Structures are given as structure tokens and as C-alpha cells.
């Protein structure tokens, strides 16, 4: 047990996800011995992220202004909407360069075991966006986990009666991998989703 500021720092770092007491201590002593300018940059970045970053009022992606860069971009298609669980999923999809529509960030997936139901996600806001009538296709890009799939099923049931095409991201084999190493569930999904060439 240390005293004062160093113990406070260890305690605060230890509250971060994935940082245990030993790691918190290691980081705290690294910061203590680091260059003062480097530590100042880190503390400024922490201050700025809480001060400036907020959720986009349209899609709930993280942004520093009222609307995120994607929602402000007039070149993007308004008729295709991609639903993701978290902001980091937007980044992953953007890296593909394949999608030119808009996004909607739910803020998680339906997980009754964690007490997360439909009312805890931004489903009401999604329905309001779909109600404007501009969206023709809704792409459900939730994680391929039980929770993500159940969330996609729930959303499909809500949205299909509105006459909007609802699609789900394909599941299958990773590019560059050997077929023999694929697990039976992924391989089964790949067979289900096979396409004509």
C-alpha cells in the first residue's frame, strides 16, 4: 500500500477494464518516471475526451460536434441504414470501404442476463428514423453472437411490417484461412449462405 497521490493513481487505473492491481501499479510507476510533457499530453487527452466527445444526435456514433462525420456527409446514401452495436463496429465497417450508407449505433445488444432489454438500447430512436420513410434497406450488423443474433431477430420482427428490406451480414469463412481449420458452426453457416458463381 502506497501513500497519497501514487496510491490514488493506482486505485483509479485499477478501475479500468482489463487492468488488474499489478498492471495498475506498473502503469503508475511508468507514468511517475515518464517525461512530464508525455504525462501532460495524456492528461490533456483524457480531459478533452470527456469534454468534447459526445454522441451524434442522429446515429449515436461518437463525435465532437452535433452530428458525426458520416451523418454530415451529403455523398452518402440515405436509403441504406446499417445497425451496429458499438461505435467501434462503425470503424470496422468503414475500413472495408464497401458501405456508403448511414449507420445507427444501438449501444449494445439485448442481453437479459445482464439486464439489458430493448428499452435500454436505441431502438426507439431507430424506429423514429425508419418512420421518416427514406430508408429502403436495413442492414443488421450486430455481432454474430447469441445476443447479437437475438437482437437482429427482434429488430427484424419490428421492422419487416414497415415494408423495409431487412438484411443480415453473411457469416462464413475468414479470408486467407484453411477450410480444415474452420469450426463446424462457421462452416455450417458458410454452407447455408453459399452463393451462385
Amino acid at each position, binding site marked *: 500500500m502506497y501513500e497519497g497521490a501514487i496510491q490514488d493513481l493506482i486505485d483509479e487505473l485499477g478501475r479500468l477494464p*482489463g487492468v488488474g492491481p499489478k498492471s495498475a501499479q506498473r502503469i503508475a510507476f511508468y507514468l511517475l518516471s515518464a517525461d512530464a510533457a508525455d504525462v501532460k499530453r495524456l492528461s490533456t487527452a483524457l480531459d478533452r475526451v470527456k469534454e468534447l466527445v459526445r454522441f451524434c444526435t442522429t446515429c449515436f456514433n461518437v463525435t465532437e460536434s452535433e452530428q458525426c462525420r458520416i451523418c454530415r456527409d451529403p455523398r452518402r446514401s440515405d436509403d441504406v441504414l446499417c445497425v451496429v452495436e458499438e461505435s467501434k463496429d462503425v470503424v470496422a465497417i468503414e475500413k472495408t470501404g464497401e458501405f456508403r450508407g448511414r449507420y445507427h449505433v444501438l449501444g449494445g445488444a*439485448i*442481453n*437479459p*442476463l*445482464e*439486464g439489458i*432489454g*430493448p*428499452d435500454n438500447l436505441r*431502438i*426507439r430512436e431507430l424506429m423514429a428514423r425508419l418512420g421518416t420513410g427514406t430508408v429502403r434497406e436495413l442492414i443488421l450488423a450486430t455481432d454474430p*453472437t*447469441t*445476443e447479437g*443474433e*437475438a437482437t*437482429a*431477430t*427482434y429488430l427484424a*420482427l*419490428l421492422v419487416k411490417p414497415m415494408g423495409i428490406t431487412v438484411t443480415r451480414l453473411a457469416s462464413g469463412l*475468414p479470408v486467407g*484461412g484453411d477450410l480444415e*481449420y474452420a*469450426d*463446424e*458452426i*462457421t462452416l455450417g453457416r458458410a454452407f447455408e449462405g453459399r452463393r451462385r458463381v
Partner: protein
Amino acid sequence: MSGYRRQLYRDDAVVLRVQKIGESDRVITLLTRRHGRVRAVAKGVRRTTSRFGARLEPFGHVDVQVAQGRTLHTVAQVEGIDLYGKRFIDDYPRYTAASAIAETAERLTPIEEEPSLRLFLLTLGALRALAGGERAGPLVLDAYLLRAMGVAGWAPALTECAVCGTPGRHRSFSVPAGGAVCPDCRPPGAARPAPVTLDLMAALASGDWSIADAAEPAARRECSGLVAAHLQWHLERGLRSLPLVDRGATAPAARGGGSATPAHEQERA
């Protein structure tokens, strides 16, 4: 690890819960046949290259090899026996019911690695019945909750007075008293459920599905309320998943038939 080999054991288990940890790992809560409730880290399962991540999704019945650790164990290998989770993902009400079953099993095994074979078999049977789709999901859930309370020693008295033991079909139900109560023992505030509701509860507890399947929606709703109240009274803390159970579909649904009614559009029981 030099000179020290971690002890390995193999068991079959139901996956109750998965939680993210670190960069790409998950903590898997398993209800095993011989080792009770076990928490183990499954390393790298969130990566798309994981060879067994798909087998460790919730509600699956798996054959697992666990390496014992000082704090958390590690999943060394896993094979799927019957992965029920994939049958619930197309059916939202059954997914929510399966979640309530898993949470109940977890809460009824407060001590890790204390074997509970009856609860394991009951949980496995409930998930199998739910996946089979032959019975209405809410009935399977209520039957599971009633029998799980029986395993825990809190079975509600349904065919005799919970206070004096007088046999009979009593009209009042008191959660603090422990079930149905006779007119002489009826405490203030005891519920007065319909007689068919108590008959339904008794049928679910004993596995008389001919009575259970024929029950009217009103009796099913009242039964679910009493079962939930009785369970949560004894657990001393609410189940997080129980209020989120979608009881919209009362008729048995074909597997993957998508009979769900979104919870936004229906009254929750």
C-alpha cells in the same frame, strides 16, 4: 509453468453466461455435471480465427476440458454436444426464457464447484424442451422455475396448506408463508388466485403436461406472476432477466418460426 502441470479435467456442461474480458477473451460460466458451477477463461474466443468460440455461446451443451487455475480456470478444449443457443436466436421469446433459465441456474449455485447433478439435469432438460419447441416457452420456463425451487428446497406448497399442512385444494396463496394456505392460516395480504392457476402450478411442478398445455392464457399469466414472486422472495434479489422474458407467444411455436411479439408492442406479464 516449468515443472508444474495444471490439473485438467473433462466434464459435460451447460454454458450459462459469457462475459468479455481483456482484448479477445471471455469468462465462461458453466454448469457442469460433476463439478457444479465453474467459471473459466476461454482465451482468444472473440477473434474470428478462434476454433472453439462458436461452441461456447450461451445455452449450449458442451463437452469441455478445463485446466484448473488458482483463481480462474481455463477452457482447454471444447466440443459441442447440442448447441441449443443457435435454435433460440431465431425465436426471441425463447431466447429470453432461456436467459431466465440460465440466470436461475447460476443464482441457485452460489458456491462454485459444488456439484449439483439434479439442477444440471433439470437445466439441461429445460433448455432441450425449450429448443424442441413442442411446449409453450413460458410454460417450460415456469415448470423449470418451480422444479428448480424444489431442488433448492423452496418448493411452494400447492396441494396442502403451507402453514398447517392440511391437504386440499386451497384458494389463497402467500409467498412469505410458502405457498397455498387454508382459510384458517391465511395471512393478511395473501393472493386469491383462480383455482385453475394453482392447478396449473401443481401440474407444472409434477410434469402433468396435459393440464398445463390446456391452461388458458389468464391462468398462465397468473401462474407466471406467482412463480416469479415466490422465486424472487427466496432469492432475496430480483432476477435481471425475468422482467425481460417475452411471454407474448402462448401457443407452441415451430422451431425458428418467429412467433415472437416484440416486447415494445405487447403488455408484459
